[in-house]
């Protein structure tokens, strides 16, 4: 008994001891498992909202930023804003990720090592940065070479742009380079046919049939949310009336996937098809006779004074007959006829030009062809047609102080448009880079880069990098280092757009004038950052003299107040408001009244803070004196240009025709390069945000890398399998990417997304994917001088097998 009791006690003691040892051990273990509770506990607090404007693309969406305890936690569309209408695209939704990006800069960085790497930069105090830069500027100003200053900027139409422009004017430089070609081709086409300097606004909302010639209508459009809202209404917003979208393009895009029909054409032949359809309209008498006879010239006789020898009717019938167009585009006769008749007989129809994204504006030829088609359909300035936007009446800036040296500098030709080009003053960043490298009329000694990343987004990325390196002092503003910044000398940490005041005019593609107010949504702006306009004003003060006095305001908010006062003085429009308000204002203005809902500039200001801004929703259709500003006062069919451009065109569709023209497709054929911009990374912005990287291509479920789409037949010929790693080589360079074999791209071509392959951009963008712009040969379209990416051809070779398996990094 004793023995057994002892044993029992022994066991009991053992258990207790085991437990005693086990419990602390388990705590240690659970600690070691590393904080199971993530330990993140967002604090709560009172909720409110602040209105601002998104600047992740030029779309200009009004934002409503929800805050809890003063911290922004969610970004949504501002319900009253006429562009976003309470909605937002994925980029806008991800705005907070860019605000709270872990790689935001917090101190000026000076390059001390070789270009191209963030490791070559050292943090320096703001004072040192400003001292060095202002010293250089003063010197330039003193020696009378103010034109040696250049500013490369994005196109956000906000304070930063106006201050930059003003700074250049006051300083005396003409070289204000907007690194945004998005609307250039469409603007040029509108200018050449209607004489108006604006990007056309397509009224998709009110039409029934949209023929989209390779446009990214439902992706990275000029103002994506505005267009997508219109598209929703076009499709299902009008009882009994459902719009049809036909997408014509060599690669089935996301827009194409939403379309009712995809018509696959050979790369670069969209414009030819547009003219082919125009020819059907003319030959079958389906065009708008009234509009053509009353408002157009050049239809039956050559346009006077243009040097064109053919009338439009002649040009179409001679050059764009059914058979020939079918042959050149790869679209069958039947389809061309059917589409043309559908288009012509729709109650309201619209052709949209091939603007593929902020970096890929399309060619002038294609846009002219589409403009021509639209005119034959009687679309200019008609509801459901092509509208002409109006500038916002923003004013309030005093006259520039007089300064002879500055005036002389301003009078010099812009470096980027010094050779040819139209008088529209369209920027040409690639030419700027070329002239910097070759040595133009005058050297560029100081360049500011703000809101733009040309080393990533220009059509000649490598030349641009060299040019940036060559300019003695390049100052970049950036929240997260851009590629361009890495080739410059100073990187100045910029405040995020959600952290600053701004007043911006309406985005392209929106027909009515509007002015949106951005307010800082975040009490504690990131430490060490300053906004670009603030820095420019500060530098102006340092330079002194007339440059300093060009900026009479103490800070940006008071500048904005002055501009709003100017807006008040325009005596038109209204505060942004509900749909009911909108209808009211329309009705009143249509009747010739002004019913703004504010009586003083002060009321306008506080109203704008609460509603998001000012706009004028009234659009007077058929105001021909405003929208037809050509010499003839009519819509001009530019057969001269169509003919010349058509003749000069050497697009690769000939090669794509499966060996029928050009060299036969061998085992390593030359393939057409089709570039596209996925909305999440369009314009070179977005790859720095992980949420957007996830979304690159939902159809193929591609994310976080660059891929190459290739047709199964073409792939089989070369021996490429799905998910292989391939190398694309052009005359200019080569990149590596993952091959995706899909019938979404036509034969004889490869499609590659633009927007990845960055050196900068922080942890998520840097080194992710490849930049296909590096493949582009330096070809340009004649007449327009626009870069012609479609002239590039590539060869594809497998460099690694099985993206799923061993080859996976």
């Amino acid at each position, binding site marked *: *008994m004793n*023995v*057994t*009791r002892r*044993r*029992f006690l022994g*066991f*009991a003691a*053992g*258990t207790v001891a*085991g437990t005693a040892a*086990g*419990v602390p*051990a*388990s*705590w240690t*273990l*659970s*600690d070691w*498992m590393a*904080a*199971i*509770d993530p330990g993140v*506990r967002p604090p*709560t*607090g*009172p909720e409110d909202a602040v209105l601002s404007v998104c600047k992740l693309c030029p779309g200009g969406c009004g934002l409503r930023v929800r805050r809890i305890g003063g911290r922004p936690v969610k970004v949504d569309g501002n319900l009253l804003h006429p562009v976003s209408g309470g909605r937002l695209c994925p980029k806008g939704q991800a705005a907070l990720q860019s605000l709270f990006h872990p790689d935001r800069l917090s101190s000026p960085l000076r390059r001390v090592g070789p270009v191209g790497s963030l490791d070559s930069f050292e943090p320096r105090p703001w004072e040192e940065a400003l001292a060095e830069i202002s010293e250089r500027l003063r010197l330039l100003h003193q020696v009378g070479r103010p034109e040696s200053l250049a500013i490369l900027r994005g196109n956000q139409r906000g304070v930063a742009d106006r201050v930059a422009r003003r700074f250049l004017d006051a300083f005396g430089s003409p070289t204000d380079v907007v690194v945004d070609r998005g609307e250039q081709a469409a603007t040029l086409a509108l200018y050449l046919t209607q004489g108006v300097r604006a990007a056309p606004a397509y009224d998709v909302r009110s039409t029934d049939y949209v023929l989209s010639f390779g446009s990214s209508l439902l992706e990275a459009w000029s103002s994506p949310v505005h267009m997508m809202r219109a598209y929703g209404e076009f499709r299902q917003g009008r009882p009994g009336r459902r719009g049809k979208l036909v997408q014509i393009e060599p690669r089935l895009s996301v827009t194409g996937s939403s379309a009712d029909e995809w018509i696959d054409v050979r790369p670069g032949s969209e414009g030819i098809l547009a003219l082919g359809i125009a020819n059907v309209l003319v030959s079958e008498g389906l065009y708008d006779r009234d509009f053509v006879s009353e408002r157009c010239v050049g239809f039956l006789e050559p346009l006077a004074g243009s040097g064109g020898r053919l009338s439009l009717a002649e040009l179409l019938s001679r050059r764009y007959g059914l058979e020939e167009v079918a042959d050149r585009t790869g679209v069958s006769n039947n389809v061309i006829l059917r589409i043309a008749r559908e288009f012509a007989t729709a109650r309201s129809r619209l052709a949209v030009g091939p603007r593929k994204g902020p970096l890929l504006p399309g060619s002038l030829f294609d846009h002219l062809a589409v403009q021509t088609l639209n005119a034959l359909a009687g679309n200019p300035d008609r509801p459901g047609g092509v509208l002409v936007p109006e500038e916002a009446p923003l004013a309030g800036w005093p006259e520039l102080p007089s300064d002879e040296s500055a005036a002389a500098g301003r009078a010099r030709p812009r470096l980027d448009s010094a050779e040819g080009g139209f008088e529209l003053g369209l920027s040409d960043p690639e030419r700027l880079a070329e002239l910097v490298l070759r040595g133009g009329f005058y050297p560029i000694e100081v360049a500011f880069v703000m809101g733009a990343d040309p080393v990533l987004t220009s059509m000649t990325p490598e030349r641009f990098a060299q040019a940036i390196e060559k300019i003695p002092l390049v100052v970049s503003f950036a929240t997260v280092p851009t590629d361009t910044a890495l080739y410059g000398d100073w990187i100045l940490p910029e405040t995020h757009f959600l952290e600053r005041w701004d007043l911006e005019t309406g985005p392209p593609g929106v027909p009515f004038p509007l002015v949106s107010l951005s307010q800082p949504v975040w009490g504690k702006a990131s430490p060490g950052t300053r906004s670009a306009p603030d820095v420019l004003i500060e530098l102006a003060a340092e330079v002194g003299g007339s440059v300093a006095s060009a900026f009479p305001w103490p800070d940006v908010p008071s500048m904005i107040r002055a501009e709003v006062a100017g807006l008040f003085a325009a005596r038109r429009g209204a505060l942004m408001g509900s749909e009911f308000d909108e209808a009211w204002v329309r009705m009143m203005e249509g009747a010739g009244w002004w019913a703004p809902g504010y009586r003083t500039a002060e009321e306008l200001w506080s109203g704008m803070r609460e509603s998001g801004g000012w706009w004028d929703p009234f659009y007077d259709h058929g105001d021909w004196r405003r929208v037809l500003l050509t010499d003839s006062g009519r819509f001009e069919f530019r057969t001269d240009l169509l003919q010349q451009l058509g003749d000069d065109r050497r697009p690769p569709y000939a090669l794509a025709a499966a060996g029928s023209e050009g060299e036969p497709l061998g085992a390593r054929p030359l393939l057409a390069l089709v570039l596209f911009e996925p909305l999440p990374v369009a314009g070179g912005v977005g790859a720095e945000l992980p949420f957007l990287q996830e979304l690159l291509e939902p159809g193929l479920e591609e994310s976080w890398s660059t891929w190459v789409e290739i047709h199964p037949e073409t792939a089989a010929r070369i021996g490429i399998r799905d998910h292989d790693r391939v190398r694309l080589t052009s005359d200019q360079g080569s990149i590596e990417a993952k091959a995706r074999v899909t019938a979404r791209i036509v034969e004889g071509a490869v499609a590659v997304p633009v927007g990845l392959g960055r050196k900068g951009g922080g942890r998520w963008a840097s080194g992710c994917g490849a930049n296909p712009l590096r493949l582009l040969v330096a070809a340009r379209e004649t007449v327009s001088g626009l870069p012609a990416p479609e002239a590039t051809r590539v060869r594809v070779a497998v460099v690694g097998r099985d993206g799923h398996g061993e080859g996976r990094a």
Partner: protein
Amino acid sequence: MPRCAGAPIMPDERIEKGQAPTGPSTGEPAGVVASAAIGFLVFLLLTTGLLTVGSGGSSSRPVDQPVEFNHRLHVEDVGLECNECHEFAESESFSGLPTAETCAFCHEEAQGNSPEEAKLVALLSGGQPLEWGRLYRQPAHVYYAHSQHVSVAGLECERCHAGLAASSRPPRRVRKLTMDDCIDCHEDGDAESDCTTCHR
């Protein structure tokens, strides 16, 4: 872990019952149980680290407050209502802890001669924010709205914060709320007890 120890009991009992009383002592089956239990436990521990029961020990450390606030003095003697300092209790999900401005409303200058008040006045004059230590800790995955309980259900503050108004100094320990604290009341009060009513 009773279920583990439970396993070997049955055979022991069965055989024991059928056994002559001259058999070994009653200690042995217990020993078997214990050894089996320990064996099982040790096994599980080694195999899976199952002993990592419960998430985190977070032994409640004493909470330090910037000022030893006297609730009784303010509520009973001065006659303040709870929501005069916890101003969001009726309208927001959180009740809100008084900010420096709230205190400064009365205590810009000392009202009495308590050393704690002196501390407060010093803090206020220094322009520092008051950073109160949290005493009630609601798990992060729980949605709880003071407004709902105070304004709609009409509960008294004492229902959950019992005795706080009568205390002369803040409790020193964090009170961790468990799901039972909520469910008991919800069932009594016939309130919703759908998971998604509170879990978020």
